[in-house]
């Protein structure tokens, strides 16, 4: 598999991806082999079904949301470039990057972009606000059946109330950024 992966992946492509995402060469080839192993249709793109075949993802409460995040709006296929672009959000910020972060274009793995990625998982209608309903949906996914709608509703209310600074009953991205305790996201 590995050899096939590297043959299919042209050097210049790797270079481009490298530039765009900041992954190292070996990371790219490793992910490419992962990509091809996921790609059951062997057509160079992944479909939603391909993702859903990952067993762990099937039990992940937010699995569907995350799968969706890999697909640009309106499409149901994602190629390797897109795949890498999404994954790049999860690349840790390295020391040397911290310094040049101030430069013009923000890398995909900046704190803001990471948070934006998470934000988009909540914000289904892409209005840059997490409404109560959207929050409720996510909560519902995460809590299972043991908690009632009413409880969930009050949690959601409370959540929004807590984060909502401008009083529009929803969480905007700016409000969202201020909330999370985690320093960016972890790992990958």
């Amino acid at each position: 598999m590995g050899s096939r992966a590297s043959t299919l992946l042209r050097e210049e492509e790797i270079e481009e991806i490298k530039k765009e995402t900041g992954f190292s060469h070996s990371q790219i080839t490793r992910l490419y082999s992962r990509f091809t192993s996921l790609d059951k249709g062997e057509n160079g793109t992944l479909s939603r079904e391909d993702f859903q075949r990952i067993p762990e993802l099937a039990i992940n409460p937010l699995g569907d949301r995350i799968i969706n995040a890999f697909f640009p709006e309106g499409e149901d296929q994602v190629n390797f470039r897109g795949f890498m672009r999404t994954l790049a959000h999860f690349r840790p910020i390295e020391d040397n990057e911290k310094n040049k972060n101030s430069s013009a274009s923000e890398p995909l793995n900046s704190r803001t972009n990471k948070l934006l990625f998470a934000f988009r998982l909540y914000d289904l209608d892409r209005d840059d606000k997490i409404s109560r309903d959207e929050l409720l949906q996510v909560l519902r996914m995460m809590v299972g059946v043991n908690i009632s709608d009413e409880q969930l509703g009050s949690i959601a209310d409370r959540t929004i109330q807590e984060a909502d600074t401008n009083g529009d009953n929803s969480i905007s991205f700016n409000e969202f950024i201020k909330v999370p305790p985690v320093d960016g996201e972890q790992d990958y």
Partner: protein
Amino acid sequence: MLLMLLLLLTAGTGTGAGTGAGTGTGAPPLRGPALRSSPPVPASPSASPPLLLLPKPRAEYGAPGVASARSAAEEPAGGGGEEAGEQHHHHGGGFRVVQWEWSYVQTPYIIAIWLLVASVAKILFHFSQRFTTVVPESCMLILLGLVLGGIVLIANKKQLYQLEPALFFLFLLPTIVGDAGYFMPARLFFDNLGAILMYAVVGTLWNAFCTGFSLYAAKLVGVIDERVHADLLDFLLFGALVSAVDPVAVLAVFEEVHVNDTLFIIVFGESLVNDAVTVVLYKVYISFVEVGAENVQTVDYFKGVASFLIVSIGGTLVGLVFAVLLGFITRFTKKVRIIEPLFVFLLVYLAYLTAELFSLSAILSMTFCGIGANKYVEANISQKSRTTVKYTMKTLASIAETIIFIFLGISAVDKTKWAWDTGLVSCTLIFIFIFRAMGVIGQTWVLNRFRLVPLDKIDQVVMSYGGLRGAVAFALVVLLDGEQVRAKDYFVATTIVVVFFTVMFQGLTIKPLVKWLKVPRSTSRKPTINEEIHERAFDHILTAVEDIAGLQGYHHWRDKWEQFDKNYLSKLLLRKSVYRKSELWEAYQKINIRDAISVIDQGGNVLTSARLSLPSMTSRASFPEVTNVTNYLRENGSGVCLDLQVIDNVPGAKVEEDMETHHVLAENLYKPRRRYQSAYSRHFMPLGEKERQDREVFQRNMKSRMETFKSTRHKRHKKERSLKKRRGSDSKEDGNEKPRRNVSWQDKDPVVVPVESEEEKGEHSDPEKEKEEDEGITFVARKAETPKIRPKSVPAALEGCHSPPAAPYSPTSEDSHLPWKGGVGSPPPCVSVEATKIIPVDLQQAWNQSISSLESISSPPAPAEPVHPRVSALSRLGGPRPASYTPPGSLAGSTSSVGAQVAQGSFCFPEKKEEEEEEEEEEEEGALQEMRPLMSSLRPPGAMPPPPQPPPGSAPGSGKRRNPCVYLRSFVTAPPPPPPPPPPPPPGDSRSRGPTQL
């Protein structure tokens, strides 16, 4: 202060032993009975030689009292004959009115006095705020110990008290470690586990070897005096015991410094985990020293390594086994709440002792027992037990820490125990400091390649500087066998200096250092529900991404663990009722409670206890609003649930009518003075009369205060739910009505209350819980049934529904909800200007009619209503009620949706919005139709209230209940407008936006 301590001290040492510390020099004349008879005294709850940490043959350890008795006994007492004579004198000569029984109480007495001294010392330190911010408490305690030791020494020529290793390892250390382990922030600990393990294992080994070898080198070079008879093995042994960072010292100093959480957990975690390393190294060296360096074979080194693995892993496993045991036991303590804390202490302590028994790492065992059990235990035991556990643990740990430091000081004074060598002392100090710094820097460099949030230079400085040595090292060095380690006295002296230097000098300077370096401090940030949610969401996201990328990283494994925990462990270790609860919900509750408390703290009180103090019928009737607000808040599932018991018992989506009824009774009634009362119970903690009343005042207060908070929340989703809510208000009123009637009823029968309130307070929901466990399947059925105790007036409302917009009666129900809206101080959105415009004329008339009718209703407090037969029966029984019930707080979703449906059905407000939602309504009506037979059949005969009366006996669960009276009144007092009035100007602006959005 000194004088006082001196007095206390003499009380402790002198009185019985008669040495007269203040006056006496030398020859103790009155030593008498105490000492002679001390051997037969069952002196030792504590004399337990076989469990010593290390297999060293010092059999005679014990509590301070024992120690003192022993050392005093050793002392060549001036006159044995005198003593005997005195004893004779005591017990001879016939009957004596008062006897001097010092020997009888000696041991516990001395222990108690010591504790008292330590505690009083703590109080005294904290008299000066400025002083304690500069000088850490641990320093002060050591100084105090030095002073006390000096006094005893002067008085006695002999140190009576020592920090005995057995006392330390068997009693003092476990209390501190137990506290630390049990309250360890588990997530933080495991997130940094890699770093902790690295520092604890590699770092400690590095320190031990380097210090040992360097000291040996120094010896060879000649820096260390010739008198120190030690070879390489001795130095390695010494290096091992002096290199371990000490949990007690670290806790004591770092807790005051407030460095950020990560830094703290790394240093503290290291100090806990390195126990295994220290113990093993120590043991290995001891055995090497015993057999002699030349006889050590290669295989022994491997045995040493194996021993390390066994000691650490074995200790951890023992801890985890006890954690499981503890979780499992607390699952069944429902009926014996009072001993729940005991189980926690016992099993955690047993984990420690068991590990000691097999000479595994006891600290690791205890730590992991605490970490592992915490989650399950906290979920299983009651709120009170939780508080008890917390405070007891903190108290014990605090007192143990105090004693340790005082004893360290005292022990240092005894000159016979140690010998000074400047070379050794200074070399050790320098080496441990240098190697600590080097080790930290080296390891951090490695770690930072893997860590996401790297440890920067400042962190490293603090970590190096925070490598405090403490009582563990001291106890270990005292345990050394002077026969085999001939330099023991030198080592003791050096260890004492090292401990003093690190605790006092470094402890004193670390605070300014941290300030100067601008180390990020821990901010006492309150947890927010947002964090709670997003943290979970992020965990899921990261796990998913790891899965997609095909990695099996940290998150992957954590997710696996969580699955395992959820599927097996929690099922095994948690009560079923608890198991069903959502952690998220729990967190939410906690945050709410915190908020509520802070609200109370900040504000004054609304109700005075004077107002509540007369539980007579009239006074109650005069302010029913209090009752009803309480009621509303309690039953409203949205969780501003201030009654801790309610929170305790909020079971997931379970509907507990029983509990609800209990609460209606228990909460709404001001407790009548008890006619009789079981004065004492070992099994239940009775609340004092005063306490109960205070609590009541507090709760009611809190609830009414939280009203404001809630109302803002209600505004929030008005958009989405205004319709629902308005309808829901019907049922809300019902609920309010009920309790009031109960009040009147209950009052006639005050005897019932005393009988049941005791259990009820603490245990009321237990039967329900049991039941719950038994009948998970009826769940669905219950949902359908919930409405059955609901509005008796529903039929009327239903009629209104069938002839939608204009039925003359419909306004009754509609009106009833209006006040609900208005009562919060904001206008009912449905009566907004816009809304009124679209109300047809005939409706307006109906409206006005109803308003006037309302006026008449709302004024009388309606005490004479018939008691709901079921309710009365129920409350009389005080027993469990099957199937049909709803828990007040949380019935939340299941009921509320049903409730909403019912309410919706019953409510037919003629408004534009209704048309918009007609389809929805139709569906719901369908549902209603189905339910109606049920409801009507369940409706108790003759309980029908007069039609205009707000319907009683409502759905307990419909989270949106409001007090009818208050709200009705507030509405009514507003001028009843010919065209329905534009509502009183809303205080909340979001409120005012509402109607327009309709």
